[in-house]
């Protein structure tokens, strides 16, 4: 346990591969949006409606803006993400526009999820979600290597202590 304790002492960055995951997720989202816009555009033209501008203008703009956002947002998010496994609490600092520094005392932890979406599974990352008795608790650490997530989960539960934590 001491070894694991030592390795988490300093504030940590997320695994860099999370940028790939986020970029892909954002790109898929904007891609779907652009395709929808294109479908509506073509549909309206086929229906004989007078749509201003050349065909695919809106979809193209959406694709360009989405591409920029999908590139920039994940990188900015990554730069601002830190988590720190402190002595008595899990502390997270994240957010680009709205900055959030949240702290969750271990003894309040009710249960922990380690979740993986399909993309995360492909690159070997996981999300650690810590639940307390309050639904408002902000405690999701995205982008941890699967092995680390498991270790962190055990560490937090070991520190969580006894009792029902309410």
């Amino acid at each position: 346990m001491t070894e694991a304790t030592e390795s988490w002492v300093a504030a940590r960055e997320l695994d860099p591969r999370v940028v790939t995951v986020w970029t892909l997720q954002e790109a898929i989202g904007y891609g779907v949006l652009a395709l929808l816009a294109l479908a509506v555009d073509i549909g309206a033209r086929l229906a004989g409606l007078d749509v201003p501008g050349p065909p695919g203008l809106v979809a193209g703009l959406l694709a360009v803006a989405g591409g920029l956002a999908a590139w920039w947002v994940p990188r900015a998010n990554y730069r601002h993400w830190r988590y720190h496994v402190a002595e008595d609490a899990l502390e997270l600092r994240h957010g680009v526009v709205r900055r959030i520094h949240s702290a969750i005392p271990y003894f309040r932890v009710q249960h922990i999820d380690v979740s993986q979406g399909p993309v995360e599974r492909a690159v070997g990352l996981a999300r650690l979600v810590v639940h307390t008795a309050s639904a408002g608790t902000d405690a999701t650490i995205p982008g941890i290597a699967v092995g680390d997530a498991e270790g962190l989960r055990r560490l937090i539960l070991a520190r969580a202590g006894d009792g029902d934590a309410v």
Partner: protein
Amino acid sequence: MRSEDPGPGPVGDPGGVVGPGAPGGSLEGGGGGPRRLHVLSPVFFAVGHAWRLWPLALLVVARRQLWLLVLGALVLLAWSTIEWLRRTYELEGGALRLEEGVLARKLRAVPFDRIQQVDLVRKPLHRLLGVATLRVETAGGGSAAEVDLDVVTLDEARALRASLLQAKARLAGIPVGQAPASGGDTTAGRAPGPRAAGSQVDTSVDLTAPRAERVLLRLGLGEVMLAGITGSRAAAALVVLGPISQASDWFPGLSDWLFSRFDPEAVTPTTPAAFAAVAVLGAIVWLGLAAASSIVTDYGFTLARTGNDLVVRRGLLERREAVLPLARLQVVRIEESLLRRALGLASIRIQSAGRAGRSDQTASRLAIPVLQRAQVNRVLEELLPGAAPVPRLLLPPPAARRRAVTRSVVVATLVMAAIALLLWWLSALDVLTVPVAFGLVALPVLALAMTLGLAAYRHLGHATREGFLYARVGVAIRVTTAVPVAKAQSGSVRSSPFQRRAGLATLHVDIAGGGPTPRVHDESEATAERLLHVVLGRVGV
């Protein structure tokens, strides 16, 4: 996948329960590696999925494409089987672990001592097949059960429940059999289900002995009426008046009959005095309705303390009683609207966590509709011992005043700009002509916005004292929140770009149970961070 050793989990009680016939191994030794649910589970999964897809099924049936229905059912069953194969549970490392998911994977770990409730649910179909659903709940903030084992054999379910409750009881140092977690059978359907041997009755409370009741607050008829007149019911009374004014639509003959009786010329107010009289009469009817609706719900409002419970009784036609164990009370909010401040009144709302940490309906029934401001501290002390009196609150730094005023002025400017744009557009269309001098109205509006911004700043505040954090916000309705630091689940310091430029931040305190998150607005970043340490219990207050 199977581990050879029993694992460090405390489940492996030698006198423990062995689940015979459990698929994939018995409970013996506690660990035993991950297990799958009952072989019939895919059927239950598939039924669950089909239940959500019923509109599609209906469409297919309507088009008489039965083969498609059969194909769909087969696909669902196949998918459910894969889900079943990919879903395992295990008692290991002092926690119940559940792994699930085909494309997205999720591993959930629930420590035994966090388990609040273990329910065994048996629907008629379950009973027919000799299986059961085991629901495990913690105090987690979500609405669904944290772990839902759907389905396992009845023996397995009982053994699991016994193991979980035993492990929890041992961790809590309570003799087995008196574990605080409930373990009752929830038997759905009419047929009498077999009562589990493990079902427990809480014997720690002697229900027969009458307990002394101490009345903390009793509202007289006048106060109850005042609550309606000064509260939100006065606004709600308009909703009642609305339909009455439209009664002529429902009874077409009514207005003719009225006109035949009363000369409309005589009834319609013509002089200013008559106008005033009608207005006063309307106001009286309106306030009367508000007072009446308040009497119906809150007549004879009594707040009392019985042992460690709070009891509230209220109601004219239907007498309602709500009971809340004081230990579940999380936060007390003192609300004072502008009108009530002027009259020296306030109201109190409380937030509580239910048995499983969820929001509790009793809390809303325990709200105190109105009380004299002089009594607030006395009642607060009863609700949260040590919290009263509310200390002198500290104003945020001057940067918060600039921010409050700027925000108010910017909002007013934007709203006025929108109105001006609309008026200009309507003038351009020759719909109406607005003199340019009308723009002078902007000056008093801006002055008002500035005053409101200042007022908003002056109503902010926070304080800490002996285990309590106090926060205040709001002009129209000023809300002072008293948070016992020991009830904080977690906390966060948040800042928008505007706040950061002014060196400010807002502290959020997360509390069990639903309700608004207590916040300390626009404090300096250093103070907000210090308060976060207080919330975490790192520094005393």
